[in-house]
């Protein structure tokens, strides 16, 4: 039996042109620049979808607006939209987002990862797992799952 892909024909969007940040005229060398929405989006936009050779940005699974950040409170929330309502890869995508942010942001950051409301059949169940620290830690000790996550994250280290 051939198992088909969850979503054999995803809609692929164009990648948004990357804005070049202009250097600030008044540079205080010792001031830490607050982390903003774009910076966080830059961390996650190139994460590869687990099933297709496209990035989460290209599949519009995440957009710049799906990132809410409050640097002063060290808080970020990423809301992602799976390509199909019954996507069983939703948990893997959520894990990829978590791991990437864990590895990229200062440790003071609190991260919430959620599925966009109304876009998935088992939204509450997936959200609960993704935001359970112990479940996430145990899942990442699974070598197969960790390998899958690392493969999805590989393009982001380019």
């Amino acid at each position, binding site marked *: 039996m051939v198992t088909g892909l969850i979503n054999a024909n995803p809609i692929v969007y164009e990648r948004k042109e990357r804005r070049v940040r202009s250097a600030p005229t008044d540079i205080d060398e010792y001031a830490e620049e607050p982390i903003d929405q774009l910076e966080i989006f830059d961390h996650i936009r190139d994460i590869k979808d687990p099933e297709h050779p496209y990035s989460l940005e290209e599949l519009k699974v995440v957009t710049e607006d799906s990132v809410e950040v409050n640097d002063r409170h060290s808080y970020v929330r990423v809301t992602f939209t799976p390509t199909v309502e019954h996507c069983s890869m939703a948990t893997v995508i959520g894990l990829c987002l978590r791991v990437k942010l864990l590895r990229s942001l200062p*440790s003071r950051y609190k991260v919430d990862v959620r599925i966009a409301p109304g876009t998935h059949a088992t939204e509450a169940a997936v959200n609960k797992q993704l935001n*359970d620290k112990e*479940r996430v*830690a145990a899942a990442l000790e699974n070598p197969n799952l960790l390998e899958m996550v690392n493969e999805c994250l590989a393009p982001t280290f380019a």
Partner: protein
Amino acid sequence: MDFLEGNLELRERQRLEGHTDRVWSLAWNPATGVCGIPAMLASCSGDKTVRIWQQGPSGSWDCSAVLEDNHTRTVRSCAWSPSGKLLATASFDATTAIWECVGGDFECVATLEGHENEVKSVSWDASGSLLATCGRDKTVWIWEMQPGNEFECVSVLQGHTQDVKMVQWHPFMEVLVSVSYDNSVKIWAEDGDSDDWHCVQTLNEASSGHTSTVWAVSFNSNGDRMATCSDDLTLKIWDTSAKASETSGSSCGSWVTQYSFYLDLFCDARDKRRHLCTISGYHDRTIFSVNWSRDGVIASGAADDAIRLFFESKDNSVDVPSYKLLLKKEKAHDMDVKLSAMESKGT
């Protein structure tokens, strides 16, 4: 000490470094810290080891042993037997190891297998002859210790519909409490007639229980109250007293008779335990742990890196007890806080 007087402070005495991954849990050895015996602490970590710490004569803490090369995954929880001679360690590798302390050295004397996947918590009962474990396979296992450090599984308790996060025995009765990802708290006891363990009560949303994962439970020293904490951002206080109706003069003889009288009362009535109050509005992120000290202070450790202490306020105008925040220690850790017996460690 009147906690409600105010001006309380929580000061860090020492930072114990050594683990190379997050510390998930710790436990004080109950046979130490008294009678001139230096206090001893066990900590367990994602680095697959357990470290033993001892307080030296100068008052500072040093790592006196590292229990390694045993668990193959994160060690999630540890618990000392009441005698302080044995340490049980529960791991994501689905096993629970029993270590014996002989003159400062630790040797693994037993390995409890049976859970299908990650074991999340382990607890000894007051007598030291029963051990309870629970895990992601939704079950709670009860083990009985036999001579020669042999452990026999007495019962596999099914009932939770999801991951069981923690188990805790009543401070002196053979009654077990488990809390779960299924948002409920279950009370388990042995049926007097058949010696079968079963669930005598479930505290869920309908019983004013939690509306999200319940992470931990802690009894007060009397055993007549217990506190639970949850991802729903509240702490709940429950009345677990064995309400004796007017005694008819029976059972006041020997202690044993009294004990079984209360035990029967505790277990017979299905709805014995009830919700007393909910402490809400103080936490804005998951509360991972709660601990009720001997002095009656309730400490909570949460995902916002803070430790909060609560105490029952003596407000006589209401029937229901209410709890007041004594202090909040922000940034108690660099990351999320989980407490154990009035000491805390971060990830």
